[in-house]
């Protein structure tokens, strides 16, 4: 467990157990000092400083974050987790995360975010880079619960994060799972660059917006290697006066023969003042590629609510049950204890959205 408060890493525990396995897990500020070769080789190699405005800002000012290196053939003996919190007023958080999984290694990383209530807006502009070598697997799970602002849309975090993973080696796999319930505005597209042949990218997302929140999230799957595969499952839930957008790009480059993508985007609307938007881009430059996109939009139907209430559930419990059912395909990708947490968070985020 690594905890980052206001961009300063305060504690990294279990370091001894990890050290025995050869896993390096430490604040990135220490990694710069103790493992300069690794940092120099990989930092900025997936998200270059010129990538976008917020990545440039982060690259210029970041002070800390988490660093993880899993050596060749090692299965990381525990789930690694980092907990982020913004405490200070009128400040930004610019943490940097770098995870390297060497050939044949496996690692699962969890990230949780919270921030206390503030009237003014705060900026979170993180950069996360993942590198998976041959046969390596990285599973990266996020439960994001930054302060969303009040019911009138005052305050809240601007969550502008650049997350990208590179599947450098053959048969490598990077899997992003996110549950996004917080922040006033979220712009976030955890992506996979599928360079290695037969490499696999996955993106599982639940984004909930209520009141005046705006979430614009999705992924980019860049198919470069042969027979690369990607799966995108996005569940957007909008309530109140919020807007929830899935924005995604599946790009198949000429060399990526036999590339496969499957995308499923489902939107659930609660009430009649919210919006759900789906903006899928598909660019295929290889005739052997197969790209599928399915999308649905639905409302929680009155007859579903009545059915649940006739069985004894309160209206709020009924909404939670239906929403959790709607998100099941994504929540089951989360590590067990996180899934329970995420379910509770969904309930809290949608409190008072019905009736």
């Amino acid at each position, binding site marked *: 467990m690594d905890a980052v408060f206001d961009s300063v890493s305060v504690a990294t525990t279990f370091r001894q157990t990890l050290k025995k396995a050869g896993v390096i897990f430490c604040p990135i500020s220490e990694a710069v000092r103790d493992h300069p070769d690794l940092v120099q080789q990989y930092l900025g190699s997936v998200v270059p400083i010129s990538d976008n405005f917020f990545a440039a800002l982060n690259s210029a000012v970041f002070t800390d974050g988490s660093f993880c290196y899993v050596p060749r053939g090692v299965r990381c003996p525990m789930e690694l987790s980092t907990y982020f919190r913004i405490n200070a007023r009128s400040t930004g958080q610019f943490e940097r995360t770098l995870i390297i999984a060497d050939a044949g290694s496996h690692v699962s990383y969890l990230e949780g975010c919270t921030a206390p209530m503030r009237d003014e807006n705060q900026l979170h502009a993180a950069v996360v880079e993942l590198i998976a070598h041959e046969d390596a697997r990285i599973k990266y799970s996020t439960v994001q619960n930054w302060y969303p602002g009040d019911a009138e849309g005052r305050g809240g975090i601007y969550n502008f994060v650049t997350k990208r993973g590179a599947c450098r080696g053959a048969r490598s796999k990077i899997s992003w799972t996110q549950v996004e319930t917080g922040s006033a505005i979220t712009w976030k597209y955890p992506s996979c660059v599928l360079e290695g042949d037969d490499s696999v990218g996955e993106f599982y997302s639940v984004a909930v917006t209520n009141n005046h929140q705006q979430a614009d999230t999705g992924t980019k799957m860049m198919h470069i290697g042969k027979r690369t595969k990607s799966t995108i499952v996005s569940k957007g839930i909008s309530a109140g006066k919020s807007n929830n957008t899935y924005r995604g790009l599946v790009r198949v480059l000429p060399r990526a023969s036999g590339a496969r993508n499957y995308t499923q985007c489902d939107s659930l609307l609660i009430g009649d003042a919210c919006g759900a938007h789906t903006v899928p881009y598909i660019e295929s430059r290889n005739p052997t590629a197969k790209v599928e996109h399915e999308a649905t939009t639905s409302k929680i139907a009155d007859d579903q609510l*009545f059915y649940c*209430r006739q069985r004894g559930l309160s209206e709020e*419990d009924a909404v939670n*049950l239906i929403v959790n*059912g709607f998100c099941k395909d994504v929540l089951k990708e989360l590590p067990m204890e996180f899934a329970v947490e995420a379910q509770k968070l969904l309930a809290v985020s949608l409190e008072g959205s019905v009736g």
Partner: protein
Amino acid sequence: MLEIRGLFAAIEDKPILQGIDLTVPQGEVHAIMGPNGSGKSTLAYVLSGREDYAVTAGSATFDGHDLLTMEPEARAATGLFLAFQYPVELPGVGNANFLRTALNAQRRSRGDSELDAVQFLKVARAETKRLAMPEDMLRRNVNVGFSGGEKKRNEVLQMAILRPRLAILDETDSGLDIDALKIVADGVNALRGPDFSALIITHYQRLLDHIVPDHVHVLAGGRIVRSGGPELAHELEAKGYAGMIAEAA
């Protein structure tokens, strides 16, 4: 005991129920028969608290509780169960999870202790077995991908697990083959006892061969036009609704 007095109800200003008087004492099973559009389903929905219906006059009490002022979930907690004519699908929601959440919500509301997952599964599996239903019924998502018959059987399974004191079956027999019909009937008959009453809404007499009612009522034009014993269902089968309603008028 269910007591309905002078009940009028409308949907979108269109009057449907036009003065229903009906008493179902505890321990009795009553059948309500009637042609399409006579108000049978409306009665079921009004008693269970569906919002689309406006009660314009009259009262309905169950064991002294004024049903018409209660939320649907509060009515459920007093022991009222509606087997839906068209059971609703809940994608991603497992049947067992749904039923345990419902049962515990009811128990909480009655001040009883909640059942944990193990205790609940024991009860649920026993009921599933007793009703000769496949055990995967509990694992599947609520009514998703169920055939028409399976949906109706699932209603009966839910009823068996929730153990209501007043069950309203809204055309639970429609679309069932004879084997499924028997399962539904067995489910109701198993619950029969001094602390259970039922209102069975049906078009056809055949369900009443398996669940023999204490009383039969004929509903037409939003009113009960005739009441009698089980033999009334047979008479109805012979004369047809038109004949009987003409006689009653």
